[in-house]
């Protein structure tokens, strides 16, 4: 099972998809590296952007994680355009497309506050530390609580 994070991000960036990264990758960018299994993105809900997103994911042989026989067909694309979340497996790894989840701000708010980072020369945006903490607090799972502890520490480990 592959998880080529840089490859996934490169495909999205080259496909001109507008998105902000949240979840475990954002935790790694802000606080500490921890194991994560997917790339969580909040896309710009603009319909053309969602179409580009679907095209990129389809180009990576995406199928629905919960229904591996199903590709990003017209029905799935329409659902995505109506605000549905979609989780796909691709040949570079899993991608969670998040548009609606308690505590997750809208794309515009995330993007306005986002931090510009890069991986192996691929530029992308991660949500701000503040938004990440808010999302983790809203979910409150054991993993989120552990992430909150990581995020409470200064990123450089300083301050005692």
């Amino acid at each position, binding site marked *: 099972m592959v998880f*080529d994070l840089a490859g996934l991000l490169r495909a999205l960036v080259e496909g001109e998809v507008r998105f902000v990264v949240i979840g475990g*990758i954002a935790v790694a960018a802000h606080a500490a590296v921890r194991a994560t299994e*997917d790339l969580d993105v909040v896309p710009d809900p603009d319909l053309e952007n969602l179409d580009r997103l679907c095209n990129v994911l389809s180009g990576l042989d995406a199928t629905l994680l*919960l229904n591996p026989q199903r590709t990003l067909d017209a029905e799935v694309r*329409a659902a995505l355009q109506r*605000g549905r979340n979609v989780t796909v497996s691709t040949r570079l790894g899993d991608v969670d497309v998040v548009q*609606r989840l308690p505590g997750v701000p809208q794309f515009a708010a995330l993007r306005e506050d986002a931090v510009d980072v*890069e*991986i*192996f020369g691929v530029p992308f945006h991660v949500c701000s530390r503040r938004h990440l903490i808010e999302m983790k607090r809203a979910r409150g799972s054991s993993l989120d609580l552990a992430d909150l502890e990581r995020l409470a520490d200064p990123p450089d480990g300083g301050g005692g």
Partner: protein
Amino acid sequence: MMDIAMQAESFTDADAVREAAEVRVRRAERDGALAPSQRLERVHELCRQLAAIRPATPAGR
């Protein structure tokens, strides 16, 4: 599993949370099939990539 088309119009926060939990279970099942050495190799590779995340280089300056 929720049908993606049927749920699209009436997809609620509760549906989203339920589905996210279902995804986690499915991943756990899938990853449970990995041998410990494969899992370790995967974590190692992932950490290598995550450690490469850097602040973006300002373009054109």
